C-alpha cells in the first residue's frame, strides 16, 4: 500500500499492485482483506472474517498502481480505514467482468454513477477517453460530500453533469433526470461537438440498485443498450460459493462476482438488493 487518506468516512486507498494494474479493466473489482498481512501471520484474522469487494477507481498499469475509493459503513471498512499507509494488504483480483470495450460500442456513451457507484466510473471514463469514444458522465449523490470520485471522472476530460439530492453540488435532483433528457433529446456539448445534440448510443451505470433499475427502464424505453454494475454480499468473490447471485432474466441466477458485476441490463432482474 502506498497511500491512504480519508476523513474517517470517505477514504482513498492507493496500492502498489502491478499484476492487478496490468490485467484489470474498468468495472472489475478486487477482494481486499481489511486486516493487514502483518497481523495474519499464520491464522487468518477473523474480525472481519471475509474479504470486502471494492471496484477499481483508477488503474495505472504504467505505475503498477491502483486506487480504490470507499466509504466506511461497517466493521470491515472501519478496520480497513485504520490501516496505516505503508502496510501490506492482501488482495485478490482483478475479478469479474468489466464494462465492454468502449471501442466496440457506437454513439455517445453516457456514464451514470450514483454515490459509491462513482469511483468505478473514473476508470471507465479514462478508458473511454483513451479510446476517443464520445462520452459524457452524469454523477449524483445525496450531498456534495458523497461525490467521491467525481474529480477523477472529470480528469478524463469528458463533460460531467453533477446532481445532488440537496443541491449542495451541481443541480438539485437525481441522475435519471438528466439521463432522461439526454435519451430524449441527445446530449448537447458532448466531447468535440459543441452545439450539436448528440444522440445517446449506450449507457453504463453503477450505483444503488433502485437507481440501476430506473436507468434500465429509461434505456429500455429508449431502445438504448445499457450496462449495469451491481453489488451483492460476497462470500468469495471468484465464483465458488454461489452467494452473490442476481436473478437472471428468463429464470435462474447469475453470479455477480463472475458473470458480473457488469451485466447487460436486459440479462438481469434488478431491484432485489
Amino acid at each position, binding site marked *: 500500500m502506498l497511500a491512504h487518506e480519508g476523513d474517517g468516512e470517505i477514504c482513498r486507498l492507493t496500492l502498489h499492485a502491478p499484476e492487478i494494474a496490468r490485467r484489470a479493466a474498468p468495472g472489475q473489482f478486487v477482494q481486499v482483506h481489511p486486516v493487514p498481512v502483518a497481523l495474519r501471520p*499464520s491464522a487468518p484474522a477473523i474480525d472481519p472474517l471475509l*474479504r470486502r469487494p471494492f471496484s477499481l477507481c483508477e488503474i495505472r498499469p504504467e505505475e503498477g498502481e491502483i486506487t480504490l475509493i470507499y466509504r466506511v459503513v461497517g466493521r470491515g471498512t472501519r478496520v480497513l480505514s485504520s490501516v496505516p499507509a505503508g502496510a501490506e494488504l492482501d488482495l485478490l483480483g482483478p475479478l469479474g467482468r468489466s464494462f465492454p470495450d468502449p471501442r466496440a460500442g457506437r454513439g455517445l456513451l453516457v456514464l451514470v454513477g450514483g454515490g459509491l457507484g462513482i469511483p468505478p466510473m473514473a476508470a471507465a471514463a479514462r478508458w473511454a477517453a483513451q479510446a476517443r469514444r464520445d462520452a459524457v458522465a452524469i454523477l449524483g449523490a445525496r450531498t456534495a460530500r458523497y461525490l467521491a470520485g467525481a474529480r477523477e471522472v472529470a480528469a478524463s476530460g469528458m463533460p460531467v453533469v453533477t446532481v445532488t439530492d440537496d443541491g449542495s453540488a451541481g443541480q438539485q435532483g437525481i441522475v435519471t433526470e438528466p439521463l432522461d433528457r439526454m435519451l430524449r433529446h441527445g446530449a448537447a456539448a458532448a466531447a468535440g461537438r459543441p452545439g450539436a445534440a448528440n444522440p445517446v448510443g449506450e449507457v453504463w451505470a453503477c450505483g444503488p440498485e433502485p437507481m440501476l433499475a430506473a436507468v434500465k427502464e429509461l434505456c429500455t424505453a429508449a431502445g438504448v443498450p445499457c450496462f449495469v454494475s451491481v453489488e451483492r454480499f460476497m462470500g468469495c468473490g471468484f465464483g*465458488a460459493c*454461489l452467494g452473490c447471485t442476481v436473478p437472471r432474466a428468463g429464470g435462474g441466477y447469475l453470479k455477480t462476482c463472475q458473470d458480473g458485476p457488469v451485466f447487460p441490463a436486459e440479462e438481469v432482474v434488478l431491484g432485489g438488493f
Partner: protein
Amino acid sequence: MASDQPDLAVQLFGRTFRTPVWAASGCFGYGREFAGVLDLSRVGAICVKGTSIEPWTGNPGIRVVETPGGMLNAIGLQNPGVDHFLTVDWPWLQEQGATVIVNIVGRTVEEYVAVARRLEGTGVAAVELNISCPNVKEGGMAFGTTPGSAAAVTAAVRKATTLPLIVKLSPNVADVVAIARAVEDAGADGLSVINTLQGMSIDIRRGRPHLGNVFGGLSGPAIKPVALRMVWQVAGAVKVPVIGVGGIMSGEDAAEFLMAGASAVQVGTACFIDPRAPLTIAEELARFMGEHGFRNVRALVGAARG
C-alpha cells in the same frame, strides 16, 4: 526445530489420499475457480458441491452474510445436477488429476439413491451423503436429525453403491453420537462431522432478516468448538474414520481436529478467504508436525484422547 518432512499421506477407504486436508463441499465448487491458483491434484481430496439428480436453482434473495467470526449461507444447494457433473466437470477434474468426493443431496431417499447409482463405476473416490437436506416425505425436517431417518437414507444408498460411503452429519441435534452410530450400523464407511449450524441474522436498518431464506447455515471459525466437540464424541463412539469439518482456518486448527480423533479434515469457509487454503493449511500442518515430532498423520490422530 524442524525434523525431516513429515508424511502427510493418509490411507482411508482402501486408498491413499495425498494429504488429510480436503476441500469441503459447497466451498470449492467443482474445482474450476481454483485451478488458476493451485494444482488440484495436490489437494487431499475435493468434495464437490452438493449434487442432485436434477439441476436445482437455489434460493432467491440474499444468500450469504457475515457474522462474528463466521458466515451464514442459504445457497439452497444450487447445482447443475449429476448428469452435468458427469459429462462436464468430472472429465475435466480427471484431467487435472484431482481426487474427487461427490457430495450428494436429495429431497427423498429415492433421489439420493438415484444420484449414487449414476456415480457407480465412474471412479470418483467416494460418495458423501449430505443428510441436512429437507426431507420432503417426512414433512420437511432434515434427514440428519433423527437416527431413524439418517439410517434409512444411509442404508438405501449403501445398497445402491459400491463406492466408499461417507455420511455428513448435521450438528443441529441433541445427540450426535446416536445418529453417528445409527448411520455406521446402516453401512457408512466414514463420517464427516459437521455440516453448518442453523442460524440467522437481522438487518436492523431494514428491520428484516438478512437472508432471503430467513435461516442459513453458520460456518467458519465461530463453529469450530462445536465441530471439534462433535468430532471428539463421534470418534470415541464409532469404528469408521471421522472427517472433521468446521471452522478450520490454519494448520493448527487442523491439528486440533486430528488430535481429537479425526482421520482427515475438510476446509470450507477458509477457501473463500484464501483460495489456496487446502494447500496452505496442509503446509502449516506439516510444519507443526515437524516441529512437534509427529512423523506421520497416524501419530497425530486421536493424540489428545490420552
